[in-house]
């Protein structure tokens, strides 16, 4: 409980998610991209029979990670799927190819694992690559197989982000039951990147529920405060690498840091010890408008199916991919599950047209200010919906957006200068520090699009500050990534 400041824990329901496996499918559509890297060209044709775990698309001459069939069956179609910008959520012109498979068997693979303690690091990295795991991370996991813009020797730190502090979002790992496997996964990573330090970061609240966390020399366990912005990898990176370094911009791997999602160690364990490639992803489903679940489902299953029939048709509610503070709207529930999806949150739409809403006492209204009666009842659960709760107005310079910003920038100044096209001013205000936590927009009484503007300002940064992968269409209308080399080349031309 806080008297002053933002307390988003007041939204939480704290329900234990219900774990389900959903693998009875008739068709799946494997997207030929998932995470970092170019879209792949299919290696199979319509009519081919594929096995679960078989590589169905691979490009060796460009930075990429192979795509695997997640279930056995017959290829019936090569389709084009809609794609969305990873950061802004905008729908892109370009399409991603997908391979549609008519499922013949719901059996998993029957691969066999290796004794990881005896394998060479290089072989472990190869196993990760073949298991389809190297597309994770901001710029891919470095291996000998062109899976990343960087090479394995450049990895100094590996950070596993186990912080789930945005409201409602669940952990994908059951740290009670699966912790032994998870820990082995961390050790496998330590062996695969022998020169690096492994960091596993958890939030304080989750830590309390864990029995014992032994950190070894190679694996460091960090506990961070339960604040919503702590779930942002860039925030954790700032804590581990130091702020000055990151203020310079660039990819995290430019500074030797590889950030991986929570699911990675478990997936690495399965790939290496059990011989099961990454063909089943996990999704957390939560929010006041729905059930609390963690589903394990084959990659390529329609999202709707993965969620479960009982909640399929809640079209009224807003489904968000990622957390409610920084995720993007999910427009189409028929899209297939891809490797990078980890959380869906459903928020109810606001009740329409309330009479004099601003005069209501507001016992259930969470606010950064104490201007509602809810300030007197901090333990009462707060109503969460997707409402804007007001209208857009000019900035009144209350300064709250900069008060809540965890990295000390002045979002309202960036908004003002960005809207006036004052590029030098914007750059001075260091938008590249922003970790996309969304809190500035959360608190703004004028409902201004602050975090969105800072995000755009950050993407417009000159020089080598390309924090984000950009997409453009290639000849076939498929997406490709602009690598730093491309970018440099362009810069020179235009100068």
């Amino acid at each position, binding site marked *: 409980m806080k008297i002053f400041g933002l307390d*988003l824990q007041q*939204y939480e329901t704290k329900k234990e998610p219900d774990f389900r496996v959903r693998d009875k499918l008739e068709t799946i559509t494997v997207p030929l991209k998932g995470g970092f890297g170019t879209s792949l060209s299919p290696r199979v044709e319509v009519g081919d029979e594929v096995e679960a775990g078989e590589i169905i698309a691979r490009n060796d001459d460009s930075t990429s990670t192979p795509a695997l069939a997640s279930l056995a069956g017959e290829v019936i179609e090569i389709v084009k799927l809609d794609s969305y910008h990873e950061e802004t*959520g905008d729908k892109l012109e370009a399409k991603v190819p997908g391979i549609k498979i008519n499922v013949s068997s719901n059996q998993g693979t029957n691969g066999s694992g290796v004794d990881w303690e005896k394998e060479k690091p290089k072989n472990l990295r190869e196993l990760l690559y073949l298991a389809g795991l190297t597309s994770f991370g901001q710029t891919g996991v470095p291996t000998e197989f062109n899976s990343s813009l960087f090479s394995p020797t450049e990895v100094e730190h590996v950070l596993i982000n186990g912080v789930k502090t945005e*409201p409602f979002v669940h952990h994908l790992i059951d740290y009670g039951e699966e912790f032994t496997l998870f820990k082995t996964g961390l050790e496998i990573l330590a062996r695969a990147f022998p020169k690096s330090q492994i960091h596993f970061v958890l939030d304080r609240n989750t830590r309390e529920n864990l029995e014992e966390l032994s950190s070894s020399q190679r694996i460091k366990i960090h506990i961070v405060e339960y604040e919503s912005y702590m779930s942002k990898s860039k925030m954790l990176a700032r804590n581990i690498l130091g702020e000055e370094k990151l203020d310079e911009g660039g990819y995290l791997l430019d500074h030797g840091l590889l950030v991986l999602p929570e699911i990675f160690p478990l997936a690495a364990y399965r790939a290496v010890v059990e011989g099961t490639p990454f063909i089943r992803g996990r999704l957390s489903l939560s929010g006041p408008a729905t059930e609390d679940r963690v589903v394990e489902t084959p990659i390529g299953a329609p999202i709707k199916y993965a969620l479960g029939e009982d909640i399929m048709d809640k079209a009224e509610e*807003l489904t*968000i991919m990622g957390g*409610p*503070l*920084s995720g*993007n*709207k999910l427009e189409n529930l028929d899209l297939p599950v891809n490797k990078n999806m980890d959380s869906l949150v459903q*928020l109810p*739409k*606001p*009740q*329409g*047209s*309330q*009479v*004099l*809403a*601003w005069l209501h006492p*507001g016992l259930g*209204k969470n*606010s*950064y*200010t*104490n*201007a*509602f009666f809810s*300030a007197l009842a901090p333990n009462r659960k707060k109503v*969460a919906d*997707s*409402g*804007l*709760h*007001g*209208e857009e*107005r*000019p*900035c*009144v*310079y*209350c*300064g709250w957006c*900069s008060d809540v910003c965890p990295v000390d920038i*002045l979002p309202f*100044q960036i908004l003002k200068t960005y809207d006036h096209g004052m590029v*030098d*001013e914007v*750059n*001075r*205000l260091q938008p590249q520090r922003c970790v996309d936590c969304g809190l500035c*927009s*959360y*608190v703004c*009484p*004028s409902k201004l*699009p602050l*975090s969105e503007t800072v995000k755009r300002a950050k993407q417009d940064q000159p020089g080598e500050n390309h924090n984000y992968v950009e997409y453009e269409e290639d000849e076939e209308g498929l997406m490709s990534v602009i690598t730093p080399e491309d970018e440099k080349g362009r810069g020179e031309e235009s100068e």
Partner: protein
Amino acid sequence: MNRLERLMSDISSYTEDNPYLQHITEVIDTVRSIVFEPGVSADKSPFLRDYIEIKRYMFAVVLAVAPAALASIYFYGWRALAMIVVSYVAGGIAEVTFTLIRKEEITEGFLVTGILFPLTLPPNTPLWMVAVGIIVGVILGKEVFGGTGYNIFNPALVGRVFLTTTFPVATSSEWLIPMTGGWAGFKQFSVDTVTSATPLGVFANSGTLAPLRDLFFGNIPGCLGESSALLVLAGGIFMILARIIDWRVPVSYLGSVFLYSALGTYLWPNQVAPPVFQLLAGGLLFGAIYMATDPVSSPTTKEAKWVYGVFLGVMTVSIRAFSGYPEGVTYSILLMNMFAPLFDEMVMTFRYGPIQKPYK
């Protein structure tokens, strides 16, 4: 949608299509948005949003100043209420006219200016003068700069300075003596016992100090809202606890007045009044709590707020002690409003370094 709301949206779509009534659509829409929260979803992340909005924000300020406004009726009769109503009506018309000309949305900032302005005036200000003052304040203090959010000066103070410089006799030669005891002003329309000076004026002329107890509870002549230090302070504490204003400006302003006048009264006892008297007399508390904290015209960064407050304090005490005017709060705040962007710029330069010009 209930019937009333449907009616309003019908009217607004009718006026929008009608070439003669087009321009009042904005007014109807504003009224509608004040009455009904539209219940729209956030379009971009974050999808979860705070419940605070500008209407609630401004309303909290009005709520905080309400006890002082009620007290002004108690001290000076119902005429005080008439001044507030005139200010709202005249200022509202000016505001709406301007937004219609500019075809922009009407903003809620006026809710606050409309009540703060009359509270800074002497209780016997003629009603027509209240109207002139608020119109000037809204137009010259705010609209010419582009409306709420773009103004450099506090609009209420611009209106007040206009009146005190244009009509000096009417606004500062006679002061009403407040009524107390029983129902006092609640039973009558106006008060007519007059005196020639406020406690600050008395001190400037004769060096006599009014009793602190009267200053604190409000038994002294002065402007409408500033009579009772107690109620002004209560409003300020409410706003600080509700987080509507930042505590740094009032604390640094009042703190520097206290320190500077403590030093000053030791060095120049005839000119500088002692610190507690300085704090309680005149418009200082009202200005520090309601005027200097106006977020638009004050600095926005924390560090600059401290600097701003300290400068305000030094300036106020200096004007009170060494100039021809007994009171200096209004001038100090307006003057410092001009420096607010500069203070912010200094803080940003300190924090981020100067603006880098490319290709230098």
